């Protein structure tokens, strides 16, 4: 009696195992192409990225992962397009099951870029420079890719009163470190002048004048700020 129960349970288990394996195999008739899609320089999500493989497409806005299912096994071309980015094309060999393909999109341009506006703020690390882009209508540009920029500038001590001043002693000249701030909306590109790069008389030299040039693939853009705080703000 006991043996027959054991045999019955074993047969049911083996049968269920076979059924599950069959279903899994049948499901894996197709391949799934999945992976990450991000800006090559910043690692941010690529707005309106359209990923196409074998007549199937998906669109991504804020997500850095994608998946395309039911792709027949074999050779295919993965094509990705997104506004303001270079097209991405890659031949891929799709197998049954999961196929990992990570996509790094290279930025092409900032749309209708006409100029920059800078703002400065003293932070713990140094003087932070916000770089905002504006278009031909004078409006701030919001969605744009990360591009290989370089920044250089000169910082002078501001001499005189707030309404009547002139450039004084030059306290910095040369390249300025750039970094990308994903959390920002308008000013994702930022520069930083570390405190140890400038030597000032903290008692007398409170404000500075900053002149900047941003070198971009779309040309050089200049702007200046006349009220750069040369001191750490106490909070």
């Amino acid at each position, binding site marked *: 009696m006991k043996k027959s129960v054991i045999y019955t349970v074993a047969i049911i288990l083996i049968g269920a195992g076979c059924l599950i394996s069959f279903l899994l195999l049948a499901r894996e008739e197709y391949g799934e192409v999945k992976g990450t899609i991000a800006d090559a320089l910043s690692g941010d999500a690529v707005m309106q990225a359209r990923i196409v493989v074998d*007549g*199937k*497409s998906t*669109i991504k806005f*804020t997500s850095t992962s994608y998946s395309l299912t039911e792709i027949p096994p074999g050779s295919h071309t993965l094509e990705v397009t997104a506004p303001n980015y270079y097209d991405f094309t890659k031949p891929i060999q799709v197998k049954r099951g999961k196929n990992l393909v990570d996509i790094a999109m290279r930025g092409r341009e900032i749309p209708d870029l006409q100029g920059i506006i800078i703002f400065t703020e003293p932070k713990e690390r140094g003087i932070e420079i916000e770089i905002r882009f504006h278009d031909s209508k004078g409006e701030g540009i919001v969605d744009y890719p990360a591009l290989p920029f370089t920044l250089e500038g000169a910082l002078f001590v501001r001499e005189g009163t707030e309404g009547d001043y002139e450039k004084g002693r030059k306290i910095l000249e040369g390249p300025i470190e750039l970094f990308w701030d994903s959390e920002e909306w308008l000013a994702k590109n930022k520069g930083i002048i570390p405190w140890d790069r400038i030597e000032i008389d903290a008692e007398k030299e409170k404000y500075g004048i900053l002149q900047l040039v941003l070198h971009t693939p779309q040309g050089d853009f200049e702007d200046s700020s006349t009220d750069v705080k040369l001191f750490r703000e106490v909070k």
Partner: protein
Amino acid sequence: MRKFSLFFTLILALLLGALTSPSLAQASPFREQLVYSLNLFNGKTYAPGFCPRSEDTIYLIANENNAVSPRITLVYFWPITARYMAGFKTLNEEIEGTLELLKDGKVIRSLEKEDNVVFYPEGFFAENSRMYLDEEAHAFLQKYEKATKDYYKRIDEYYEKMREYRDAFNKFLEDLSKRREAGEELSRAQVEAEMPRQPGSPEGVRFYTTPLAKNYILNLPQGTYQIRLRARDGTIVQDSQKNLVAFVQRRGGTIGYEITPGNRWTMKESSNDPSKTIYAAGKNTLYLRPFLQDEYNDLYYKKLLDPQNEGTPERWMWVHTTPIENVLVVLLSKGKLLESIKRAPYYVKQIPGPELGYEILEYSEEEFAGRSPSFEGHKLEVSSVSGKGNYEFHLEKREGEVLKGSEREILFVKKENTNLLHVISIFPLIVGLVVFVQRKRSIS
């Protein structure tokens, strides 16, 4: 045995740990997803909703205009209601393309987006609305815009009249005091007759039309279909494939009642089946609202209201569609006419203080100025102690013209000799006691 109890304790501890874990009470992170935004006809009005990726079928009523729109949004799981929620305010991107309608795997129609509006003839909060497309949609929108513009014009005129009225009233008061000072004696009736009349405020626009929307419109005969979105570049958009069930009612046009009991007015009940009896006990005040109703499959209809709802395919449910107005509820007892009751508005007045109760009063504009009625209905007062026995009621359009299927019976649950029930409930205990005593005796 010891091993088993150890294993069991471990499993129990794990389960308890999982259940008390704070992560269970937190919403899952936002995930970008293609969903279908829905504006579906539910038999009486249009209700918005969305179909997340987790649901593979959209249910809709056949032969009616239903609007769907594939969109990319952020979806998160809300554990309190165990439902996926859409964050349309954070991300709401329309996907351009052609919606393909398939039947048995073949494309039978390719749909482009159409202009549409939803028209509420009795205002946005009323219970019925219709969807209009293209030229009709534009016409209904213009009608609403014109009515709104005219209303604002009337408002301006009203403010001007109010200003004139205030000036006239101040002048009237000045004249009145001068006349009194001069020794003129004026009666109250005389003063009231000479007093300037306050202008009435203009009536607002009663109907409402939604702003113009562009969606794919599905107006399909009964059956099962599939939909998918073909992007402008000819590709099929991932996760856009859904099954579609267009269903019809099993029975329609019968009469159902929404019943508001006077002693708990927020707990509405219904009497939908003509063969069903309404049970009451003691003295009751019931407020009835008759409706035309349709009977739908429980699963289909609940999934229509929200694709994440659960339902039972073997069950059927009644849905009240159109309120029946301009009828009388005729109350009878033993076939003898007791009362013909008109529909009337009622106002629920909260009783302040520790009683925390309320009373339902007949609404009148003079008495409750600036307030709207809480509900409307035909008021029935029935009592088991009146000696009239059970009651019947039905609807009459005109005198003697009974609306078919509107008949219902009110039966009173008798409260006499209810103590017998307590005796019956003790019976199993007595049997148990007898068995126990007998067994004890046989052992000893």
